[in-house]
Structure formats: structure tokens, C-alpha cells
């Protein structure tokens, strides 16, 4: 019994815990679809998200950010590892429990143009899940829908319209409303603002923040835009070729980046100030193929502080400050 209470306490605080999650995609070829290799899209990543906070996940395209998000939601099957949502393993749930879980975890996709069905009116898009999961009694359904739409900055009369009648920013509001309609605790935001203009971007980010405060939501915010991630996140994870190279509080990551990749990433962001002298670390080449990642530290081919050991030994995750984890040999005392 005592054990149970401990689990409950932690689950109150930590809403999502990912432990050594791996997701490999097989590469098949030939007439018999023989497996020739694997793409290690997500390779051994672990992190925790506290309730009511936002974790930002940054990295270049193809580093596995979106795959992580989708695997957590069980939209993809895992290869190995654990995803604990409120202390329960997501992949162990049976069909019925999974349906209940769907109301607790939601996702907002990147492209508001392709993620909305063009044949359904907006009210239907937002309300479909509400009906399916019986979130509210039938007679309150219309009012509930109006409420949700209003909180996302949409007018109730928009219900009868179709997605093509809306601009990009408003479509993204529809996507947010759709995710919120089932009253979730946790939302994966997969590049929700990348397809939008700067001023619209600001509106959507503000809306997400407002909703978080009002409903005590937890976000996993996936983006390649570091400035947006810095603005919205509490903790930040930096991914490179499927592994989490650095994880910590926003301040640690942005003020005191430890991993050479994070440093390079931060220095590559253009600053809107013509006086800022460009003293940047420019990464050579592009991200290697995840089907055939480099041996040792995956980043060593592009790293400007590469040592001999980096080419052969995979670095361990180290905690260099409280809550600041780095996967790099530079912080390995034994090497020095």
C-alpha cells in the first residue's frame, strides 16, 4: 500500500515520464521485403515533464522530434523503453483504456492546411470527438462547443463554415479548439506556428499560453525555432539524430549551453539587431543519415571540439548541474 501512495505523489507532480524510449523504423527492400537495416529515429531518450509546464523539443529536421511526439501518444508503436503517463505505461493499456487515454492526450499538427478535413464544417471537426467520447450530455453539447470556440478566439457562427473559408491563423485556432474539446491534460504541439506569419505566430503563442494558465495544461512543444521555444518553454530538450544531447531548464540551456551542438544551434539564430557581431560557430555539412549514424558520439562528424574518444565511445548522460543533463565527453571527468 505504501508503494502505491508514493507512485500517486509522483504522478501528481510528473505527468509524463519517458524512459529510454526507442523507435526504429525498418528499411525493407527486395521482393520479399527483407529487412536490410533500421532507421533509428528515436534512440534511447528519457525525460520528465511536470504538470502545468511546457517542455520544448528542438533540433534540425529529421532528428526525430516529431517521431518522439507521436510515439508518446502511441500513434506509433515503440521499439523499446517506457512511456509513463500519470504513472501508467501507455503501451500496456488495453483498447478501452486507450480510448479513455485519447481524451487526456491530444496533438496539434504543424500544417493547418492539411490537418483539417476539407469536407467537414468546423463545428463537426471540433465536436466529433466530444460526441464520440460523451464529454458532455447531449443537451449541453451546443453550448459546450460555443464555449470552446470562444476560448480559442473563434466565433460561434463559424461552426457552419468549412476550413477553406479560414486563414492560416484561424485554421490553427480550429486545430487548437479540436484538441481542447475533449478536455485533455497533455498536448503535443508539433510545430504549431511554423507555417504562420510572424504577427499571427504571436497570436497563437499567446493563445496557447493563456489556455495553459486557465486549464493547467501540459505541453510538449516541438519546434525548430529556438526563439519560440525559449519564449514558451520551462524545460528544453535538444535532439540530434535521435538522441537527446542536452536537457535542462530553459535558463540553463539558453544562458549556459553545455553541448557543442546546442552552442552551435544557438549561435546560428539570426538576431534582429544589426550591431550584434557575428561570432558564430557555423556547423559544416548537414545532419548524417539516421540509417547509418556515425559511431561513437553521433555529433562528432560536425563537432568543433571533437576528441579521439568521441569517435569510438558513445557518451553517457551526465548531470552537470541540478536538472541539467548533457550527453557529451567534454563533461566526462575520466576522459580529462
Amino acid at each position, binding site marked *: 500500500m505504501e508503494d502505491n501512495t508514493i507512485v500517486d505523489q509522483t504522478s501528481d507532480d510528473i505527468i509524463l515520464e519517458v524512459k529510454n524510449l526507442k523507435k526504429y523504423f525498418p528499411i525493407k527492400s527486395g521482393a520479399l521485403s527483407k529487412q536490410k537495416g533500421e532507421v533509428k529515429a528515436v534512440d534511447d531518450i528519457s525525460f520528465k515533464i511536470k504538470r502545468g509546464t511546457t517542455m520544448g523539443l528542438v533540433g534540425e529536421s529529421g532528428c526525430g522530434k516529431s517521431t518522439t511526439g507521436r510515439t508518446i501518444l502511441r500513434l506509433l508503436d515503440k521499439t523499446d523503453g517506457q512511456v509513463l503517463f500519470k504513472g501508467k505505461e501507455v503501451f500496456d493499456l488495453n483498447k478501452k483504456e486507450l480510448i479513455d487515454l485519447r481524451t487526456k492526450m491530444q496533438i496539434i499538427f504543424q500544417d493547418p492546411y492539411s490537418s483539417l478535413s476539407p469536407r467537414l464544417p468546423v463545428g463537426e471537426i471540433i465536436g466529433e470527438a466530444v460526441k464520440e467520447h460523451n464529454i458532455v450530455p447531449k443537451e449541453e453539447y451546443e453550448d459546450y462547443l460555443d464555449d470552446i470556440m470562444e476560448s480559442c478566439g473563434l466565433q460561434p457562427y463559424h461552426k457552419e463554415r468549412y476550413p477553406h473559408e479560414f486563414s492560416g491563423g484561424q485554421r490553427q485556432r480550429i486545430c487548437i479548439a479540436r484538441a481542447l474539446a475533449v478536455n485533455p491534460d497533455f498536448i503535443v504541439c508539433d510545430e504549431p506556428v511554423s507555417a504562420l506569419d510572424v*504577427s499571427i505566430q*504571436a497570436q497563437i503563442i499567446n493563445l496557447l499560453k493563456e489556455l495553459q494558465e486557465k486549464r493547467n495544461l501540459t505541453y510538449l512543444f516541438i519546434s*525548430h525555432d529556438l526563439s519560440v521555444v*525559449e*519564449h514558451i518553454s520551462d524545460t528544453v530538450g535538444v535532439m540530434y539524430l535521435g538522441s537527446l544531447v542536452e536537457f535542462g531548464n530553459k535558463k540553463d540551456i539558453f544562458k549556459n549551453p553545455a553541448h557543442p551542438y546546442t552552442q552551435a544551434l544557438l549561435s546560428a539564430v*539570426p*538576431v*534582429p539587431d544589426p550591431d550584434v557581431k557575428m561570432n558564430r560557430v557555423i*556547423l559544416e555539412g*548537414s545532419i548524417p543519415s539516421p540509417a547509418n549514424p556515425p559511431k561513437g558520439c553521433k555529433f562528432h562528424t560536425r563537432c568543433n571540439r571533437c576528441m579521439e574518444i568521441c569517435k569510438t565511445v558513445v557518451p553517457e548522460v551526465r548531470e552537470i548541474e541540478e536538472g541539467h543533463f548533457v550527453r557529451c565527453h567534454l563533461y566526462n571527468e575520466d576522459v580529462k
Partner: protein
Amino acid sequence: MALFNKKKSKDANYISAKESRRISSENRKITDEIEKQRNRKNVPREEYITQMKDPNNVVEFDDLHTYFFTDIGTVKAVDGVSFNIPQGKTVGVVGESGCGKSVTSLSLMQLVQRPQGQIVKGAIRLNTGEEVYDIAKTPSSEMQKLRGNTVSMIFQEPMTSLNPVFRIGVQLDEVIALHNEDMSKEDVKKRSIEMLELVGIANSEGVYKMYPHELSGGMRQRIMIAMGIACNPRVIIADEPTTALDVTIQAQILELLRNLKDKINSSIMLITHDLGVIAEMADYVVVMYAGKIVERGTAEEIFKNPCHPYTIGLMNSKPVVGKEVDRLYSIPGKVPNPIDMPNYCYFKDRCEKRFGKCEAAYPHEIYLTPTHAVSCYLYDDKGEVKDGR
């Protein structure tokens, strides 16, 4: 009365079929007239050879109006734009989507979709070094010699702007061979490989034989740049060259553009919505809103002392690494309907600093310094900031 109300409740863009037919037949009259002018044979050279106002400029946009005649009305995509691109400098054009920044650059290339899209007024003077062409009047046959040679363009989407069924080499050779008819095939190939090396492609011989799908986004953008600079153009138009790329690749490409510009001594017209990219690259900045320039000046002036409320709003709405704000500023409202523009300042309805004077006609450009101009009534009477309230 009821009928009248019903009509009004429809979408702002809604017009009846009859109305649409009337508009389209009227449009036909206008565009046919312009096309007739354009398609004359043997246009006398005096018509399109002019003089630069300032010989140090490579391009001068002078009161450019590019309109699109659509079936629901005329879209004034570019409505009186004037600015210069000086020799060897980078001019950044910034604005939200639909503000006319791409149409401005397409007008310079004479690539606006005809016959619906037409330059109806104004001039674009292009200095080739020997002669000055007025692009607005230059016939297509002449334009073909300038396009790619004197002005060239790097497009936003490296994925879609390369032809997937031809090898990189063939596509590059085509550009070079077209503008250098007397070059032998071997020389053309040599030059292509030289270009690939110039844009930092290590395995240039190999890439020459590859197809676009074998390359990453950053590599493809390098190919596009190689194509753009293959004929040593005087002006390179870079239309959102890094928007589709990752930050680290973006940094590489911007660095490359900066170096190349000095190497071949050309000017860049950089179109983007990312203020960070502008600050890093541009010497001069032009801020556009709804087809008009709201503010222009040197990069220093625009970033240190932004004056137009739209510029200020744009800057505040972008989060900046290392700067913490509680809530991002977001410009209220949305861009007015391009078919039915108001007759006062286009930004008035979204502006937080509007006052009585804003009811008047669209404000003229007011020069705060010789290089810094702003179209806003707040700065009436040369350089002085008036408190409107």
C-alpha cells in the same frame, strides 16, 4: 429590403455572377490594350532605354504599380513602390505574406503572371553597366537576354524549383549555354563545375551527375544559388532563400550569399519575413504592408529607431533569443481585403496610435533623415514626432 439585407450578410468577397461577368469583360478590355502595346514587333529602343537618376544604383523602382485583374475586382498587389538598390549593397524587403514583396521582385524579372497581372504604372530602371533598361516597357525578347544574365533570382523552395527529371549538370549547363552562345560544351561544363565549387559543394564532379532528389535541402539551395550567379548577375533577387531550411543550414547559406556577393560584386535584393535574417544581411531595409512601403531606411535606422507602428509591431511580435517577455505583442485585426482597400491609411484599423489625422488620405512619405522615410501622420512636418493625442 429583406433582399438587400441578405446580400449584405454574404461574404465581403461575394459578388453575383452578373457582376463578375461585367468585371471580367472590363478587365479584358484593359489587359488586351496593355498586351497589344507589349506584343508589338520591333519596339523602338528609345522607348525602353532610359537614364538612371543616380548612376550608383543598379535598380531603381519608381512609383511601381502592379495590379492583378481578377474576376472579383482589381488587386493592387504593388501600389506605388519606390526604392533603390545601390551597387554592391543588400536591400532587405520585409513584410507579411500577401504584402506584395514577391510581386515587386517578380515585376523586376518580368515574371508576373500575364495577362491578369500587369505593370500599369511606374518604371523599374535596371542598370546593366552599359545601358539602362526600363523593365516595365522592355519587350519580352529583350528581357530574355537580361533575365538570368543581369538579374537573376533564387527561389524559396529549392525542392520545387529544380526540375526532378534532369541531372543537376544539365540544368546548370543550360543557364550558362543560353547566355554564352559562343562557349564550347567542354567550357560550359567546366564553368558549371566551377560554379558548384564556388557555392561550397565538395564533391562537385559527382553532384554534377546527380538528380535533385539525391541532395538535401541545403545542397539544393546551393545549386539554386549556383544557377543564380552562373552569369555574374548585377542583381540577385533572393526570395525567402532560407525559409525552408534549418537554422544551422540557414547560417551556412547566408554566409555563402554574403561571401559570393563580394566575390562577384553584385547587389542582393533579399525578400524575407524574418527580421533576424534582414538585420544580419541587409544594408538597407524596406518594410512593406498591403502593397505599399510603410517605412524604409538603413538597417541601423530601422532596427534602432523603428518609426511606423507596423514596423514596431512586427518587431515586438517576434520572440528573440535571450530577451524575455511575458506576453508577445500581437498586432490586432488583419490585413484589409486587397480588392476593397480603404481610402485612408491601410494600417489605421489595426494601429494603436491612430488619431484624428489618420482619417485623411493615405499619408505621404516623410523623410526623417535623408535615408529614413516613413509613411505615417505621426511624423508629419519633416522629422518631428507629433503627439497626436
